């Protein structure tokens, strides 16, 4: 805690610090991507309304998808994607060394994302299925969340990450306070909005064991929650599977639905 605090102090841009330093140094921000769909990165570019405000507080020093420049160090590194090749492991260590704060952005970076579904089967089998005799041509690892390899300071969850939540983490970092990460179910937010329960529409939903923070966005648009934000701490998965089975899924399908985004947490990483 204290080491982190010390780092905080160096990047804070709070009122008090500005007053003391008489200058507002902008936080240096870098954005990186690993294996994923880059939808979270696109969502950075989708801050149409806030982008100019954001740039008041930060200087973006490296971002391959949007600019040519490279940087030697940064206050905050936002990292998207899961780690799935030996090269990824080398790169993330390098980023960690250069970054004061490392924020995992999106389901792939935080929990492995849909990429981790492949981890539930032996890698040899999958590679053979896809590449045949050339299965050793391209090295591949199980899809790992960043936290499996390096220390991650904060998570911005979701597939894709939501802009609102990203901005929450962003403003918290700029203010020099710890962002809050909810650890309760999507049902809470769904009920706050007084949505009709997805189960009452004859559908199934993973909201009961999925971490909140999205404001129950999918159920609010008539869709079920497929668990992209990861599971709450200490989820009762046996009970969740029973609920799914009681609402019409086979045990096998219930299990598969739960694995969609959460294979790493549920099954552990296989290789």
């Amino acid at each position, binding site marked *: 805690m204290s080491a982190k605090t010390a780092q905080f102090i160096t990047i804070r841009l709070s009122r008090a610090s500005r007053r003391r330093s008489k200058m507002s140094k902008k936080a240096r921000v870098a954005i990186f991507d690993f294996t994923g769909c880059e939808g979270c990165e696109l969502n950075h570019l989708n801050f149409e309304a806030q982008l100019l405000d954001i740039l008041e507080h930060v200087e973006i020093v490296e971002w391959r998808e*949007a600019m040519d420049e490279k940087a030697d160090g940064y206050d905050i590194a936002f990292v998207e994607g899961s780690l799935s090749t030996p090269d990824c492991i080398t790169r993330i260590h390098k980023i960690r060394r250069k970054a004061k704060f490392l924020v995992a952005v999106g389901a792939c970076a935080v929990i492995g994302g849909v990429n981790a579904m492949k981890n539930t089967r032996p890698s040899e089998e999958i590679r053979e299925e896809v590449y045949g005799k*050339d299965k050793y041509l391209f090295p591949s690892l199980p899809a790992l969340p960043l936290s499996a390899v390096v220390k991650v300071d904060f998570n911005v969850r979701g597939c894709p990450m939501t802009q609102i939540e990203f901005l929450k983490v962003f403003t918290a970092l700029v203010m020099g306070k710890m962002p809050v990460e909810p650890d309760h179910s999507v049902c809470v937010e769904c009920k706050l909005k007084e949505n009709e329960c997805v189960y009452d529409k004859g559908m199934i939903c993973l909201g009961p064991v999925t971490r909140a923070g999205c404001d129950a966005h999918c159920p609010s648009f*008539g*869709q079920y929650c497929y668990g992209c934000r990861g599971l709450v701490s200490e989820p009762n998965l046996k009970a969740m599977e029973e609920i799914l089975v009681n609402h019409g899924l086979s045990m096998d399908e219930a299990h598969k639905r739960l694995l969609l985004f959460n294979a790493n947490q549920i099954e552990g990483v296989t290789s």
Partner: protein
Amino acid sequence: MSQNLEIKVKHLTRVEGHGNIVVNMLEGVLEKAQLDIVEAPRYFEAMLKGRSFHEAAIITSRICGICSLGHQMTSFKTTEEALGLEISEQTIALRKILIHGATIQSNILHSLFLAAPDFLKVGSVFPLIGTHPEVVKAALRMKGLANDISSVIAGRAVHPISCVPGGFTKLPDAAQLAELKGRLEKEMIPDLTFAAEVLTSLASEIPGFTRDTEYISLRSDDDYALYDGDICSSDTGRVPDSEYRSMTNEFIVPHSTAKHSRANRSSFMVGALARWNNNHDRLCPEAMAVAEKLGLKAPCTNPFMNTIAQVVESVHCAIDAIRLIDSLLTKGIKPELPNQKPTRYGSGVGATEVPRGILYHEYAYDRQGRIMSANCVIPTSQNLANIDDDMKKIVPEICDRPKKEIIHGLEMLVRAYDPCISCSVHMLDVEFVE
């Protein structure tokens, strides 16, 4: 005059995904000029196998955040054909509006955020905030509105929510659609006109390179084909989408985790320029006027003009979206639930024009509505062979320039294709060419 040239650009910037440019010239002989795709393979096939039809689009959407709507639309069409799900006219109209929004969004992102810095000789869009604030603000406004179309109709722009096989889980109300229409008229059209003017003033920065190639896009009788149509080649004409394999012929090359494609020649091009070449007669007059202003004439064999074709097409999308909303408002939004009761369990093919070209999905379902096998052919993969062929032609033409300039030229060329590398390494079905 450089007789020996060795170029390796690792992790090309301002493109989606990870690719390297590799060029080797030894004593004036070009040995290698290619785009290496080094993005990690993602094994989507293994993920799709055994999954319910409810999940097909949720999973394939994650192949690419940039093209997520396109993947979803193609996935729905495929699933609906395979399971015999009828959809309503209202659903089709809403999907077309969504595609227009996604096309504008992606085209603006590419032309103004990723490609325009090249014309203005800067490394990213950020310096333009200071030097060209009006352009950046207009671009942000257009992107914002294009995304709002998706947010209002489908819940969000990246990995949309409420569009599902058979229809929509939640419908927009008339007031929301009317507001979108108003904003398209009052903001989008003037902003696009302004963007076209800006690009006209930069036209001289677009390289004059040309190479004749085969252009493939969808084509339909009554529409500038985006949502639906036959496969149309500039060389051989129209075939139904079920014959997509003969029009793509995917094969593996060692330097790329993404597969390459060919049809009637060694390579072909898909995307906005291919659509322009094949379908310019279906564009609305407003878009044609902008094309004329920007000096885009059919047929156009300069791949750098792809960026210009994107802007022209965006004008058409905005005008057509307004028309479609008008028609929906006239008929009234009728409440309906998605039709998700399969009438058969078979296989289906879906083809949709996404911003970077034609996207094909093919699934086979078992009797429980679970996917047995799947195949996706991605536009960027289809373009990769064409990019390599372009590089092989352009390198000798510019090899006497300073190395930095050569590199910049090659980067611009690759960027002009607006490649989407995440998509291209999805690694679904693979057929090996012996």
